[in-house]
């Protein structure tokens, strides 16, 4: 068997928003073919980490590194990060009224295809191509004619995120609470989609509060975040333990005094 290659490495990442420190030295290595689950209480820094990886301009990195395929991501604009294969599934997908979903998706796909040195898809080619992808998330074609996320229900928004993931074929996907606000049927559809899109060449990071998503998608690693750090890493069983005992039990072994 070939040795697995590293896709994403986060080293001692510190920083925050509006002068407030949120991350206090996050370390994470993600290899090809892996699924990681990132768990933790609200405010522990999970979403901040995802936004820093995607390059949200309001977040400032004070120190540390984010390396994607040997490239320093922190030097790239958000659009460049997406184009080279980094995907963030939003916890709260944004509505863009007036911009037709299909137009938006086609522009996004063609930007990615430029980097992959594939030919641009015209309107007709794109319509044909997207049909297969719609099946992955069981979405109706009508969604494509509406404004981006405009008036979508919570579940529809999340499925639209996974549709984008399917279209952009990223190498690393960070899915921020994709399971929140979903009923059990929608959760299954979304989880099945994520499983289908996962491959040996790509990696997935699931940010979640709940064990139930991890029943559908089996993570290789579970990390617990607290106070802007990953304080414990384990296998799937860690999530079960967490569900039973709650976050209180888990302390940073190096930082007990803080609590």
């Amino acid at each position: 068997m070939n040795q697995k290659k590293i896709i994403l490495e986060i080293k001692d990442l510190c920083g925050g928003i509006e002068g407030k420190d949120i991350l206090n030295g996050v370390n994470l290595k993600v290899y090809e073919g892996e699924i990681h689950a990132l768990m933790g209480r609200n405010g522990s820094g999970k979403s901040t980490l995802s936004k820093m990886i995607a390059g949200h301009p309001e977040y400032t990195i004070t120190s540390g590194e984010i390396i994607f395929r040997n490239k320093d991501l922190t030097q790239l604009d958000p659009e460049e990060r997406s184009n080279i294969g980094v995907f963030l599934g939003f916890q709260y997908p944004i509505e863009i009224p007036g911009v037709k979903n299909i137009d938006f998706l086609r522009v996004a796909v063609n930007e990615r295809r430029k980097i992959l040195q594939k030919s641009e898809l015209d309107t007709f080619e794109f319509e044909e191509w997207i049909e297969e992808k719609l099946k992955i998330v069981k979405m109706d074609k009508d969604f494509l004619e509406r404004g981006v996320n405009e008036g979508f229900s919570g579940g529809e928004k999340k499925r639209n995120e996974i549709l984008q993931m399917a279209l952009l074929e990223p190498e690393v996907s960070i899915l921020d609470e994709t399971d929140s606000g979903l009923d059990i049927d929608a959760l299954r559809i979304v989880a099945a989609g994520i499983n289908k899109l996962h491959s040996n060449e790509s990696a997935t990071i699931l940010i979640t509060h709940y064990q139930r998503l991890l029943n559908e998608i089996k993570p290789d690693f579970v990390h617990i975040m607290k106070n802007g750090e990953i304080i414990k890493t384990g296998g799937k069983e860690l999530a079960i333990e967490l569900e039973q005992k709650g976050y209180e039990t888990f302390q940073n072994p190096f930082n007990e005094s803080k609590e």
Partner: protein
Amino acid sequence: MTKNSTVSKVLEKEYKYGFLTQIESEKIPKGINEDIIRLISKKKKEPEFLLDFRLKAYKQWKMMDEPKWADLNYPDIDYQDIIYYSAPKGIEKKKSLDEVDPEILETFDKLGIPLNEQKRLSNVAVDAVFDSVSIATTFKEKLAEDGVIFCSISEAVEEYPDLVKQYLGKVVPINDNFFAALNSAVFSDGSFVYIPKGVECPMELSSYFRINSGDTGQFERTLIIAEERSSVSYLEGCTAPMFDTNTLHAAVVELIALDDASIKYSTVQNWYAGDKNGVGGIYNFVTKRGQCKGKRSKISWSQVETGSSITWKYPSCILQGEDSTGEFYSVALTNNKQIADTGTKMIHIGKNTKSTIISKGISAGHSKNTYRGKVHIGSKAIGAKNYSQCDSLLIGDDAEANTYPYLHSKQIKSNIEHEASTSKISEDQLFYLRSRGISNEEAISMMVSGFCRDVFNELPMEFASEADSLLGLKLEGTVG
């Protein structure tokens, strides 16, 4: 990066029509008085009735006050410090395009309005106006085959004085408002269109207005008459060089549609808007009005207003004929310190008259964008209907958007619907699009285009994409 910097970076733009053509022009002395008006009239070899028209207008104007209700906040204009007539030297003698100063032809080439036979757009006839005079009108002969008259208003005064006399000042009376009165006194040139009975104008007509002199006001006058069962689509475009002083532009446009006639009038206004700090730019005070005189007639205004430091403009429809229709579709984009106060008036007089108003205002920078509109339903307008929709889009935190709809109805059997919304391009929306590989600039363009789609759909095909790219250009930092 701070919250605003990404947005404002994108909004920095260069005005690509800001060049000045070096040309000798003939100007009359500064200021306005009866002698100046007589001099303009004499220069244009006008008949008596027109001189009378001008002098009457001047008398009215002197008694009128500049309107201040629009809250535009500009320093007083010194009307004695403006030159009211400026023409490229020797222009009066030119009969054919070959004789026109190549500098001027090149200017229009540069503006993307080639006047030379070989380079022209094949389906658009153009009247090109440079400062106070019309330089050339293309496809005149071809249009004449169908009886369509398309020429400068000066030429119309000479060739078709009866038509001019019959219609000039009938839709916008000389004392209508301060700026209309001023225009009536000193108007220099503009376009004239006459579509005979039953004729569907075979091509798009357009006028292109270029202000070149810094100290000259432009006062153009446009008159379009559509006889019974005729139709025409007309487009005007406007640009000016960059000066650090303000130039006054006060135009009057009158449209008349008789029974079953339809006029579609589209404007892409891109006068120089002044710099980032609001220095320089055109003061655009325009009166545009159409009269749906005939039964089942239709007048449709569409406008894309992106230029001028101040825009004060309310293209209106008087819906007099039974079953006549008025439409107003507007996109107004303001940036930096620009001020736009624009909208429409729909005056329902006849039975079963209908009007539609769709207004999209986009404000960025420290600009102020106001929709001001009036829907009036008269006591005899049984069955009249109006639908209005006014949407504002804010970009950044310092721009202002206002909506002032005035609705009056004197007829109980009528129906007025009004919808309004204000939204904002947020940093989160931008980040969302960017995180899908779409650049900042493209993301803003996409959102602005999406916001304007309802209006762009109403523009003539040839110009819809032009308008789209014009907005893109206004919002892009890299394209110059």
